Structures are given as C-alpha cells and as structure tokens.
C-alpha cells in the first residue's frame, strides 16, 4: 500500500503536469470567486490607496505653498496610511515586486532606518531628490510611509526642504499605488490570475493561486498579532511598551488595528468572493464566524478615543482586551493555514511560505 501511495504521488517524467485537487467545475467556481475578489475587494482597495496617496500629494503641496493648514496634512496622511493598512492584506502579485510591501511601509523599524534616512536627506537637501521620479528605486527606508510620518511630524514648515521632500515622497507613493491599480486592472499578472483554473506559467493550477492568497493573508494576521498588538502591549499586563507601538507620532496605531480587522471581515464576507464560494466545494462556514468576530472587534475599537500608545501606557482593561484580540487572531491563522485547505481537500503548503 505504501508503494502504491508513492507511485501515485512521485510521478516520473519530464512532462508531468501540475495536478489540481479540483475538478473543472470546482476550479471554475473558485476562479469566479477569485475574480470577484479581485474586482470587488483588491482593485477597490488599491484604488482607495491610490486616491488617498494622490490627495496626500495635493494636500502636502498646498501646505508647502502656504495655502493649506497642517490639520489637513494630518488628515490626508491618516487616510493614505489606513488605506494601506486595509489593502496590505493582499500580498500576492505586483506588490511583491522589487522590495515588496516595504516600499509602502517599513515597520517595525527598531533600527530607525527611516528616521536616519530622513535626517540624512534633509541634511543633504539635495534638489535632485525632488525631481519627478527621482525617488523611484531609491532605498525603501527613505520612500515609505514611516519615513513620511517621520517627516511631517518633525520640523515641517512651509517653504522648507523637508516640506518639498514630503511632497516628493507622497508623489512617489501615488505613482506606486497607481501602478498597482493598473497591474490589477490589465496586465500579464492579472491575466494569469484570471486564468489560473486553466493553468499558466505563473499559476500552474488554481491550487497554487489559492495557496499564495492564503499564505499572504496568514502573514497579514501574523503581523497583526505580533507587531501591531503584541509588540507594544506585550503578552501580559506589565509588559507594555508604548514606545514600540505602530505610528506613534501620528497616533494611528489603534485605527490601524481596527482597519486590519475590518479588512479581514471584508475579504472573508465579500458576496460571491473567494471565501464565500468555498462552501460550494466543501469548505466550512468558519470564514463567516471569523469575519463577524473581526467586525465586532473593529467596531469596539472604533469608539475608543485614546491612542494605542496611551492605552499601552495605562496598561488597563483595554490593553487586556487588545491582548485577547491578539490571541483570537490565532483562530484566523488556523483556519487559513489548515482548516480551509483541509476542507477543500488541498495540501495546505504552509511550510512553503517565505523561502529558505
């Protein structure tokens, strides 16, 4: 019997094609769900990111011209920062090009790469850095949103080099975001995404696409737990470190957590989206329960007016609640890593993420 299993799974021959666990009808159903997810969740998410990045560029330009106030810059930064937190749940496709998602946000940044890059650039005040497209391909430490936050919450007055650099950084993010929108609208990648059920060079089977989508979502939930929640709050009372919370200068750390839970809910519960069609091929309804739980957490956080750093400083009841939310994300990881793939009859392949 063992030999029979081996013969079945270790197939020899140069032309051995990748095999899907799904029949043609199931694969098409899942493909339709994935396309719906791309059209109704991923693309709108990137469009929101692009629109807020463009608004950030425009608002910062006006501020630097002296025709807009700083509160408008703060609002614009919050919009683009949170738009990214939402859509960064998608970690497949063009976002992985070049230096990957770090081009948008390099955080945590315990070494202070972003801070040092900003200080160095402001000190050098090189006008060439402000030219159109000059930041493209530049060090991620300088171009990402953590650097932009460092800039606008530092010595940031109209008419300064720092102000002009903030405009350039915003413009660079807008260009990047618009590129993502274009790539998810029409591109070789999008064509490969849309035809995974038929098999192509990028996705030999729809299984490969599903596995990659799930792996990216696992990374997102892992970051939510370890970085956004536990890094600043610790595992138990007394371990809080307010200075380690995300986006401390802008005070957006708690909203970042709330948006992350909202993104999980929206991705799971998108009507006729990928997760929503999985019950038709053997998947459970667990995604709905997890989505509702995530929405409940997001709703609870939305009424909190203190910043994450302030909550960590006090280390009280809300901090304890947030630590419990971190524990709850493990149920998402279990579902994404094992529960869903197993219910679909897929090998999870969770050991294949992140190389080595």
């Amino acid at each position, binding site marked *: 019997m*063992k*030999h029979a*299993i*081996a013969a079945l*799974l*270790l*197939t*020899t*021959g*140069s032309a*051995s094609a*990748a*095999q899907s666990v799904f029949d043609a009808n199931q694969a098409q159903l899942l493909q339709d769900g994935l396309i719906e997810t791309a059209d109704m969740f991923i693309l709108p998410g990137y469009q929101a990111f692009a629109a807020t990045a463009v608004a950030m560029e425009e608002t910062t330009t006006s501020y630097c011209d002296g025709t807009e106030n700083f509160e408008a810059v703060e609002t614009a930064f919050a919009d683009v920062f949170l738009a990214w937190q939402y859509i960064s749940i998608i970690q497949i496709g063009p976002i*992985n*090009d*070049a*230096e*990957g*998602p*770090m081009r948008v946000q*390099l955080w*945590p*940044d*315990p*070494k202070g*790469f972003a801070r040092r890059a900003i200080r160095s650039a402001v000190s050098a005040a090189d006008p060439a850095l402000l030219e159109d497209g000059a930041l493209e*391909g530049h060090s*991620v430490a300088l171009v990402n949103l953590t650097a932009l936050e460092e800039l606008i919450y530092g010595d940031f007055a109209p008419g300064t080099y720092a102000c002009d650099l903030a405009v350039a950084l915003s413009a660079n993010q807008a260009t990047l975001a618009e590129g993502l929108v274009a790539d998810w609208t029409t591109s070789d990648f999008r064509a490969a995404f849309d035809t995974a059920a038929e098999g192509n060079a*990028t996705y*030999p089977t729809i299984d490969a696409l599903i596995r990659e989508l799930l792996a990216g979502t696992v*990374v997102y939930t892992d*970051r939510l737990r370890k970085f956004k929640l536990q890094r600043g709050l610790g*595992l*138990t009372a007394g371990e809080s470190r307010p200075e380690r919370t995300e986006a401390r200068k802008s005070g957006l750390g708690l909203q970042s957590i709330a948006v992350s839970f909202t993104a999980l809910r929206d991705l799971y519960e998108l009507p006729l989206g990928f997760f929503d069609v999985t019950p038709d091929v053997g998947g459970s309804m667990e995604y709905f329960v997890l989505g509702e739980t995530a929405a409940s957490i997001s709703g609870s956080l939305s009424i909190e007016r203190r910043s994450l750093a302030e909550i960590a400083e006090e280390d009280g009841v809300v901090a304890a609640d947030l630590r419990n939310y971190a*524990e709850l994300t493990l149920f998402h*990881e*279990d579902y994404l*890593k*094992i529960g869903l793939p197993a219910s679909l009859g897929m*090998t*999870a*392949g*969770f*050991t*294949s993420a*992140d*190389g*080595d």
Partner: protein
Amino acid sequence: MGTRRNFLRDAALGLGIVACGGAWAQRADTVTYVGVETSARGVSILRFFDESGGTLGRTPLDFRAHGMAEHGNRLIAFPRRPGDRFAVMDKTSLEILGVEVAPAERHFYGHGAFSRDGKHLIVPENAMTTLQGALAVYETAPQIRRLATVALPGAGPHEIIRAHDRDLFYIALGGLETHPAYGRDPLNLGDFRSQILTFDLTSGDVLQMGLWPGSEGVSLRHLAAAADGRLYVGGQIPGDGTGAVMWHIKDGQAAQIDGEARLGGYVSSVAADGNKARFTSKVTGAVLTLQDGSIIDAASLEGASAVAMHGGRTVTAGFQLLKLDDAAATVTDGHEFDNHGILF
C-alpha cells in the same frame, strides 16, 4: 491553572522541551533517516525512520527546525532563520541533551556542520547589529561551548557543508540582509550579490570562490558535494522571479545546469552521493536527478522539499509524503515535511 497563553509562553521559554523531551522517544539503534515535520503553528518535531520507512520515534522541539548535522551519536537540529537556539540530541535515545542559545544580537540560519573528527561544530549566523554574516565555531566535548566567531564578507550565510576528505567547509553566502524585527523580508533586495565561500578550520582562512555571470539576483542557499569533486549549488530568486538557480562547480569553474524552468526560481534542497545529485523545489514540486552534472530524470512530488542521499540510498519528501528508496511514509497529522532531513 494552565491557560492557552501560559502554554504558549512556556513553549516560547523552552519549557516544552523539558516537558516533552523524551515523551515520544524510544531507544533507536537503527535510525536511517531523520526528517523535520512542522505544524501550522510553526513548531517542529523530528521524526526518526528505520531503513524500511517505519517510524522509530518522534522528538518535539519548541522551534521550527530547518537543517541538521550529525557526528557519532550526536545529532544537532538547527532552527529556521531567525531562530536563536539549536538542539543537541542523542541519536540513539532520541532525547534532547541540551539547547545552545545564540549570544545577544545574533541568530542562526538553519544549518551547521561538524568537523571530520566531530570535535568542532561550525554554525552560520547573523550579526544583527551589522546584518553581516559570521560563522560561530563551537567545540563539542565535553560540552558544547562557543569558541570563536569568524566574520564573513557579506550577509546571509545559509547552508554549510564539509568537504569529504578534510576540514574545508563550503558556505552558501546568500547575500540578503535580514533582521528579525523586520520580519523575513530582505533589506537590500535591490543591491545584493551572493557567492560561495570556503572556510578552512585549520588555518581559519575564509576565501571567496568568485562571482559568476548569471547568478545576479539569485540568493545561493543550498549545497552538496559529490564524490566526483563537483559542488552542487541551489539558489532562490527572491519574490516571484524565475531564472537559473542550479549550478555545479568543478575545478573552480561554475557551470549552469539547464532545467531552471522546472524549479520556479526556487531550490528547496540539494543532495549528492557518488556521481549523482538531486534538486527539489517546493514551488513546482520538481524532483530533478542528475548524473555527472546533467539531468537524467525529472519527477514530481507536491511540495518537494527535503532530499538526502547517502550510501546509495535516497530520501525525498514533499509536504505530505516521504519516500525512502522504495518505501513511503505519510506525514504526521497537522504537519508538513519541512525543507531538510538527514540520512545516516
């Protein structure tokens, strides 16, 4: 009261090893192969097989294991990057004898190798203050003890293997700077170069074998030395790239091995025995067998990862299935076979 959080904290503190070190272990004089099985929670067990693929025992670890090294009765299980401790085990009792922890601001890369006499253990590591690679040199008797650190000319050392006939070690220097605080993402993706180094334990000399065209943008990770003098090299292309990831080096000359299209820009593991070698890719499931540097067979196994060859025997594992010559075994429930294993 034991809560879920307390359990996780205990595991994180290494108490899991104390509690479970011998729980599943049995005496095993006939271990042929040791594989790594990893759970979705990211912790591994070592599973010991006899020559017919039967399970002799399982030893749980409290970290995700990657590569292994053995000498005599000692077996070392190294942690996957950026793990900061490795387990020292007794190969017969299957029990953990101790855990060696990296110094502050350093972590290991998942591999290590013994000297010929087993008196030294060489372990690649990351100096997190500089993000540059290094080799930690340990003496192994009477206790594992760190003796020295050897700086390497670059970042990201990964697999290290020893030449068959002397204490000359080959190191795949992946070239990618990483720091665990930034996750596993490379910090110098736009500007890195990978190469193969040698380390002479007797003289302490580290030499560079040189760069070769076509390896730009590839992080060289895995190595195997064949008896015919060939050094096989497997690389990984960061991101979703494809291209050449297989080479062999003979008489100082690197030659690309065709067949990269089958590997999806990713080599999981490389092994060699006699004049044969095998490359695997988790990405595509490809299992490529070579003889004298040329591909002689291409097979497919879902999640093809660990491969080991020794004394005419071959083990290849995918996510779910392990094949030891003609015998087969399926993975423990809730786990997947991970990238490496070791044949005795």
